Structures are given as structure tokens and as C-alpha cells.
């Protein structure tokens, strides 16, 4: 099972890297937010799988906090757009 967890970890890292690239080079500002949001969701999964890979799965609390903060950050960004319209 450990080898499988390692493979899953590497694959999720790859997805995170792609989402990061999207956040670096985004055609529109919304794409950047999309990249950040996707990065956050994949991070939650990554933490969960890494816990099993290291043999101490009792640290899932951190994954919950990530999911939470990711959502709140998203809402804050949308609220920011209410004040400053992104269209030039």
C-alpha cells in the first residue's frame, strides 16, 4: 500500500504544480483565482494522503483547516470584487 500512496502523492504534487503554473500565468484574473482554488483543494487531498504515507493518519485536522481557509479565502476574493470591479 505504501508504494501506492507514494504514487498518489507524486501525482497530486503534479496536479498542484500545474495549478500553480495556472496561477502564475493566467490569461484573466478569474483564471488565477481558479488556479488558487484548485491548488487549495488538491492540497487538502495531499495532506490526507501524506498522513497515510507517513503512517500517522491522525493529522487530518490540518486538512480540515485547509479546506475551511480555502473557502473563506475564496469568499474574501469575491467580496473584494464587489468593491473594485475587475473590468478595466
Amino acid at each position, binding site marked *: *500500500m505504501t508504494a*501506492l*500512496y507514494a*504514487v*498518489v502523492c507524486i*501525482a*497530486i504534487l*503534479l*496536479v498542484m504544480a*500545474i*495549478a500553480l*503554473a*495556472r496561477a502564475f500565468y493566467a*490569461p*484573466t*484574473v*478569474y*483564471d488565477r*483565482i*481558479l*488556479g488558487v*482554488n*484548485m491548488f487549495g*483543494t*488538491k492540497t*487538502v*487531498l495531499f495532506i*490526507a*494522503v501524506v498522513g*497515510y504515507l507517513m503512517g500517522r*493518519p*491522525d493529522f*487530518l*485536522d490540518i*486538512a*480540515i483547516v485547509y*479546506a*475551511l481557509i*480555502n*473557502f473563506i479565502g*475564496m*469568499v474574501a476574493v*469575491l467580496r473584494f*470584487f464587489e468593491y473594485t*470591479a*475587475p*473590468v*478595466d
Partner: protein
Amino acid sequence: MLLLLDIISGILLVTGVFFGLSGAVGVFKLPNFFTRVHAASVTDSIAVILIVSGLVLQTPLGINIAKLLFILVFLLITSPTASHALAKSARHGGLLTMSELEKGDQEEKAPK
């Protein structure tokens, strides 16, 4: 019995990762913002379901299962909501869908 569980959870994990990767490719390859947000959010949800249920099968009954299920439910509620709100915000912000772009035959005016 244990081997069967291992096999099932292995299949779930691998398919979950496959969906995650396909979503990541879609975020780069698709032509328009609304198609990209679609790719990201749909594959996000299915990857979360598959990977977390794959992990649940590997966990002995206890608080960890409850935490995993909480993560599953939380992500299933918040992730589509965030995508929906983002797409709606983009729509209000002036991004056009592909069909509108073809009709009006104008370039996508993207705020940088």
C-alpha cells in the same frame, strides 16, 4: 478480505488521481474561462469522492473515519459553491461564453 479491500481502495485512489490529472490538463488546454472552470470543478469533486473513499477503506473504525467523512462532505459542499460563485462573478465581470463570442464575432475582452 483485507487484500480485497486493498485492491478496491487502490482502484479508487488511482481513478481519483486520473480524474485530478485530467482536470489539471483541462485547466490549461480548454479555450474559454467557463469551460476551464467547468473542467476544474467537476474533476475536483469526483477526485475528492474517489480519493477520500479510497482512504476510508484503509482506516480502522474510529475518529479518523469521522474526520475523513467531514472532509468529504465539507469539500463536496464548498468546492462547487466556490466554483459557482466564481463563474457567476466572472459573468457579472464581463466575461463572455463561447457561443456569445461566436455570435458577436468579437475578441474575448479579458481583464488582466
